[in-house]
């Protein structure tokens, strides 16, 4: 018996028009078509989706959690990127 398994796929579902695809989990499938079919049966049994993306898990590149400080913390101090940083005189609307 061959021990070769079906590859692992990550599944992304768009729950309705206007929303982006969201990661929901993974599954096993021999090819992309089967991965879509399986995702339909596994992850949309209760009308959770209207569109499916699948990608082989090994093709996903993730950022390194050890680098998260240098990657993400510098943005925390750039408060001037947020509208609440600015003072607008009372009575001004539509801004």
């Amino acid at each position, binding site marked *: 018996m061959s021990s070769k398994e*079906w590859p692992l796929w990550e599944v992304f579902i768009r729950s309705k028009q206007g929303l982006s695809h969201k990661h929901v989990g993974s*599954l096993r499938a*021999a090819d992309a078509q*089967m991965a879509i*079919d*399986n995702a339909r*049966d*596994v992850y949309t*049994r209760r009308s959770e989706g209207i569109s499916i993306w699948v990608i082989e898990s090994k093709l996903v590149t993730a950022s390194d959690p050890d680098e998260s400080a240098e990657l993400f913390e510098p943005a925390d101090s750039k408060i001037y990127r947020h509208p609440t940083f600015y003072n607008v005189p009372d009575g001004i609307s539509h801004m």
Partner: protein
Amino acid sequence: MTTQEAFYNYIVRFGDDSLILGQRLSEWCGHGPILEEDIALTNIALDLIGQTTNLFELAVQIEGKGKDVDQLAFLRLEKEYTNLLLVEQPNVDFGYTIVRQFFFDVFRKLTFEALCQSSDEKLAAIAEKSLKEIKYHLKHSSEWVIRLGDGTEESHTRVQAAVNTLWKFTNELFYQDEVDQKVIELGLGVDTSLFKEAWQLHVEKVFTEATLTIPANTWQHEGGRKGTHTEHLGYLLSEMQYMQRAYPNMEW
């Protein structure tokens, strides 16, 4: 035979096909070749049980004797079931299950596409709803026929054996008698002989891709539509009817 009787029998035949095939597929639940496929087969079984319920609801309305769908589903004698011989054949292995499903799905899709035009609105509505499910079933079974046929040597041998065994039940898909004539005349039902060729072409096209062949011996069996079944149905029914027979007239 009155029109009412003919139309009733006509609907029950389709309902029985769904019921018996749904019952067969549900035997897979918990035993599929891999979890994902277990879930997929169960989805198809659920669609078929749903179709049975819709068709039987219509049938008991037509009959007008105040029966409920479960009496129809569980309390007839073996010879009163009029499903195709194909759908009562045992699961044997995943290959047989897929080939049985594929032959049936191609036929069902063609028939139900045509039934969307039935002069009976309720039947047309059931056909339309079921058709979406059937298209998916056909996609699923076709993909698997191709994968297994053109997969490994073992899978090819197994699935070809299934084709060789089940081919003799395919002509019955197009069986017609006085029931059909009556409903066709009135535009209630469809003349399946019109798409026998389309069925054959579809099967051949998928088989070509799957490197499968149609067996040389084309001797055919029939009888299901008249209540003469293979030995397999009796066992299936004894299991399916067990509760209703052992505890009659109770609510569950």
